[in-house]
């Protein structure tokens, strides 16, 4: 319910924004550079208003906007001369790939480092890791990306400077192509992963420490269970709960980071496209990307609710983890 409501808010915002914008579309259309100013006559204005459906009441415009959306029609890009949905679908996989890779890597490594830290709490490995990762967690992803780009790509020449794939390359096999893609994605994924690592580390460290102090863990030790089983079955599974929710809840900021990082590496995902669209004032495209990105993030959060309930049977049918 809550998600549907949020999606509705986003969609409506998207509808209202261009209409709340100061100015008049005809003012821009009529003042082209290098031409004598051709003001619109009243009849022409009327014709275009009718053509774009702007003469209808706002409620009617809103309804047709909604029905268009439901049919997957996001409008027509002014700059690329293609339907917005086609362009977005072409770029979406790259961004999804970056984000998912970064989520997986940062969660896995963050949890491992956090568990190590909790295990050696207050000893030197904990102190060392804590200091390093606190420092890293404060550095925004795009600034990290710039460092990686200039040291590993520009300086050492180990990685390509931009793009997601080598242009006009002929691959002898599919794995060669895969290798090329991974080669291009390595630095952007690294930047996103490292930037997120600190947060995941802190969370799993705290979570693990609390779990390690619980009575059922002492019982497990007392029963003489092997250490591996205690760590993985008893401690980690319970410590994972807050981590899983956090993974999805922080997805919004991760997507923000991905947009910036894509621009650092000129990676052809949605973030890069969004900036290009803003630069050429392609408003339908900007709005389309905005809508797709937010809805994806909302869906991921919805999934988080479901996964959380699966992981923690104690929650049962409670309507949501954010409620209350």
């Amino acid at each position, binding site marked *: 319910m809550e998600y549907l409501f949020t999606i509705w808010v986003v969609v409506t915002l998207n509808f209202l924004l261009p209409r709340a*914008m100061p100015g008049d579309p005809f003012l821009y259309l009529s003042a082209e550079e290098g031409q004598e100013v051709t003001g619109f006559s009243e009849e022409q204005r009327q014709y275009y208003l009718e053509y774009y459906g702007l003469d209808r009441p706002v409620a009617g415009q809103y309804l047709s906007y909604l029905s268009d959306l439901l049919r997957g029609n996001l409008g027509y890009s002014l700059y690329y001369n293609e339907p917005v949905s086609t362009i977005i679908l072409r770029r979406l996989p790259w961004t999804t790939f970056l984000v998912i890779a970064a989520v997986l890597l940062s969660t896995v490594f963050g949890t491992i480092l956090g568990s190590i830290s909790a295990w050696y709490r207050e000893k030197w490995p904990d102190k060392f890791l804590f200091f390093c990762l606190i420092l890293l967690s404060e550095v925004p992803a795009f600034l990290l990306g710039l460092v990686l780009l200039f040291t590993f790509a520009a300086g050492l020449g180990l990685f390509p*400077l931009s793009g997601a794939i080598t242009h006009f390359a002929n691959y002898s096999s599919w794995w060669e192509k895969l290798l090329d893609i991974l080669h291009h994605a390595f630095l952007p994924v690294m930047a996103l992963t490292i930037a997120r690592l600190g947060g995941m580390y802190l969370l799993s460290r705290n979570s693990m420490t609390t779990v390690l102090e619980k009575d059922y863990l002492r019982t497990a030790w007392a029963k003489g269970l092997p250490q591996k089983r205690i760590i993985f079955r008893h401690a980690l599974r319970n410590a994972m709960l807050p981590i899983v929710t956090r993974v999805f809840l922080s997805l919004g900021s991760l997507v923000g980071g991905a947009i910036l990082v894509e621009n650092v590496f000129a990676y052809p995902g949605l973030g890069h496209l969004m900036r290009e669209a803003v630069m050429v*004032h392609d408003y339908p495209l900007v709005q389309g990307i*905005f809508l797709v*990105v937010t809805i994806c993030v909302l869906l991921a959060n919805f999934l988080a609710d479901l996964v959380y309930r699966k992981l923690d049977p104690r929650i049962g049918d409670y309507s949501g983890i954010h409620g209350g």
Partner: protein
Amino acid sequence: MLVKIVERVKEFSLPGKAGLVVILVVLLVAILAPCISIHPHNISSGPPLVPPGGGHPLGTDELGVDLWAQICYGARVSLLVGFGTALLAALGGGLMGIVSGYLGGWPDKVLMRLIDIMIILPDLPVMIVLAAFFGPSLLNIILVLALFSWVFPARIVRSQILMLKERSYIKAAETYGAGVWYLMWKHFLPEVFPLVAVNMIRLSGRAIVAEAGLSFLGLGDPTSKSWGLIIHHATNFKGIYYTDFWKWWLLYPWLALIIMVISLAFISRELERMVDPRLGR
């Protein structure tokens, strides 16, 4: 008051003290920008792309504008955006938190829903869209950033008020006929203020990073040269990857940003630990 602050600062750990010193230095640089920047920050004052040294302590950019001067003035933008956003967010969020926490009922429900929405919504895409539609001025950027920051102080204030409301001394004050405003001034604000103030430092760090990100995308205010904007110009320079220009043009604004953000983070960690001893280390 001042003595109390000095006493508190003495309890800071080493990173916290270092962070405080850095922020004070940045503040000084921002205030004294016209005095300490030898060259003008907006017009060229020498040959383009001179390496650091000689007349230009940090070199010049592609138009021959002195980088040290740009960084000095950029500090003003960063501080303005950071603290402006934090102040606005704390005021707005604080007010919302008080209303919903004290009144309860439907205003509280509406606010909680709103907070839930704001928390899941990815902030950068919304900022880009708003910046694209309403034009990139510094004021707009501060407003948009505040729009995404108020939820944190609002949540803190709300939970504090909910807790305080049930305390016996507040109940006692109420039975003696204390009005809403009296309670607010005398009891709620002194309890809530330290927490919000600490949160403000974190918020300003976030705002500075967000502004740098927007400027890096070229969506910042083009008339106010912030550190992010210098990075934007540097990375958009065609030959930046194949020359040594990045060694000053990109490096110094980058360092300035990183040092600033990390110092703010250290200070806020330190303060959070003092205000809330439960946080542990």
